[in-house]
């Protein structure tokens, strides 16, 4: 199915206003100016459907679940109508030789133009023998398919940073996509799983502007990862007032106070959960009463325990600066006696806690 996108959508009963409304919402979520929605709609409507190849490596299929089971099939589904998903092992009907043929014909027909989505990390141990598809190691497959890709999207924390397979002691030698591929534009969409609208936002940006969105120093789209969970958290006022839940069932917890002392990693986690929320805007971890795990940051699994507080600030309002150096071998409250303990914590990839500092 070729031709402008809007024709495809109209054939499926999507009206122009529906599309415009969708673009307005998407522009809002991408922190674009409100009037950008119309420009996006115009550009996307005229765009041709790009070919997309989706490769799963060492993963749990959670990323695919997140996208395909997103709340409103008409919204995120619409984006999937805008692309030609030529290879996705979990979703495609074909199997075995047929599936491999689909992959290779998509690569041949759209060489240099297709978008490659990868979820899962790539094991380098034992020459990549830990994960093979169709008799080939993930490493070889990635190198081969990446060659003809216009851009690569690393979906989820595993593809972006190595994720849980890379967790200490990393038995398979797992690495991220950007550790293997150096000569292609790569956008990381970390999260365990990533937020569906971030995925669709990146695709919409690619369709609208023909290139990947602006990225931060970890390769993540700034529109969604530009701010921390803490910055946009609705419980932030309680943090500023020094009101903290001390246990999961105390009065503070019932009053919805800040979960910082219960190990919330919001202050050092860049993601959009606080604004986009989950399950169709129903809720998100902090709203359900649990701190952020920090799943969109590198090595979150080894960051010293989900229920350990990041550190205790001397002055809540100056916290951001303290958080930035927590875990490094400097800290305002550090004493010489604690140096050894702190460097040990750093070596073990643990975040220094208040208890560590005060001992």
């Amino acid at each position, binding site marked *: 199915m070729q031709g402008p996108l809007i024709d495809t959508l109209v054939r499926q009963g999507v009206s122009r206003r529906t599309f415009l409304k969708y673009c307005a919402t998407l522009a809002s979520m991408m922190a674009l100016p409100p009037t950008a929605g119309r420009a996006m709609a115009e550009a996307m409507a005229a765009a041709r459907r790009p070919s997309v190849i989706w490769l799963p490596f060492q993963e749990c299929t959670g990323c695919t679940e997140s996208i395909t089971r997103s709340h409103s099939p*008409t919204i995120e589904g619409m984006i999937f109508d805008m692309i030609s998903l030529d290879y996705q092992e979990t979703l495609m009907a074909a199997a075995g030789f047929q599936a491999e043929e689909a992959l290779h014909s998509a690569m041949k027909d759209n060489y240099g133009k297709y978008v490659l989505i990868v979820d899962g990390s790539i094991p380098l141990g034992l020459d990549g023998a830990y994960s093979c598809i169709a008799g080939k190691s993930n490493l070889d497959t990635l190198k081969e398919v990446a060659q003809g890709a216009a851009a690569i999207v690393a979906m989820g924390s595993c593809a972006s940073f190595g994720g849980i397979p890379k967790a200490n002691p990393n038995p398979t030698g797992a690495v991220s996509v950007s550790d293997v591929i150096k000569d292609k534009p790569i956008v990381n969409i970390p999260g365990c799983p990533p937020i569906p609208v971030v995925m669709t936002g990146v695709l919409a940006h690619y369709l609208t502007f023909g290139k990947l969105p602006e990225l931060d120093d970890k390769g993540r789209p700034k529109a969604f990862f530009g701010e921390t969970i803490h910055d946009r958290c609705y419980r932030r006022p309680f943090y500023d007032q020094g009101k903290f839940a001390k246990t999961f069932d105390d009065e503070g917890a019932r009053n919805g106070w800040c979960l910082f002392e219960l190990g919330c990693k919001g202050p050092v986690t860049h993601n959009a959960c606080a604004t986009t929320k989950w399950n169709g805007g129903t809720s998100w971890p902090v709203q359900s009463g649990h701190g952020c795990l920090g799943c969109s940051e590198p090595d979150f699994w080894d960051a010293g325990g989900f229920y350990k507080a990041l550190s205790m600030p001397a002055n809540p309002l100056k916290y951001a600066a303290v958080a930035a150096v927590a875990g490094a071998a400097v800290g305002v409250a550090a004493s010489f006696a604690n140096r050894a303990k702190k460097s040990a914590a750093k070596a073990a990839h643990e975040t220094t806690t208040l208890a560590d500092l005060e001992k």
Partner: protein
Amino acid sequence: MSLDAIPIHVVNTLPAGSGLTGNAPPLLRELAEQVKRLLATGEPSAIDLSALPLTPADLEWLHDKLGTGEIAITLQANGESTLNETACPGVWWVTHHNEQGAVNSQFIEVAFVPELVKAHPKDVEIGWEHLELLISDL
């Protein structure tokens, strides 16, 4: 099953007037600027309410201040959207809901007519073809 069967009661009801952050009043000034620009150049603009740190109380305050105008438009497209004129003509409160009824995005648009309301020429063409078809069947 009725929700009453679940023995939970809310204990932290907030006192009235709380939740105001003071972020809403400056928006009135921004709106005034935008209305001025609309009159001078005809250029429409918008404020993305979901992108600003506004609490539900702030939004309510703003909604109250702007009031209700003469026109209320409902759009059925992938969930309901409401485009309501405020007491200030040319200032529209636009809310997009998804099919489940949750708010997807919320804007204040400053325009003579909100963009979404206008029929696209391509759609008008299709309507015209349909009319021609109706006529040919007479």
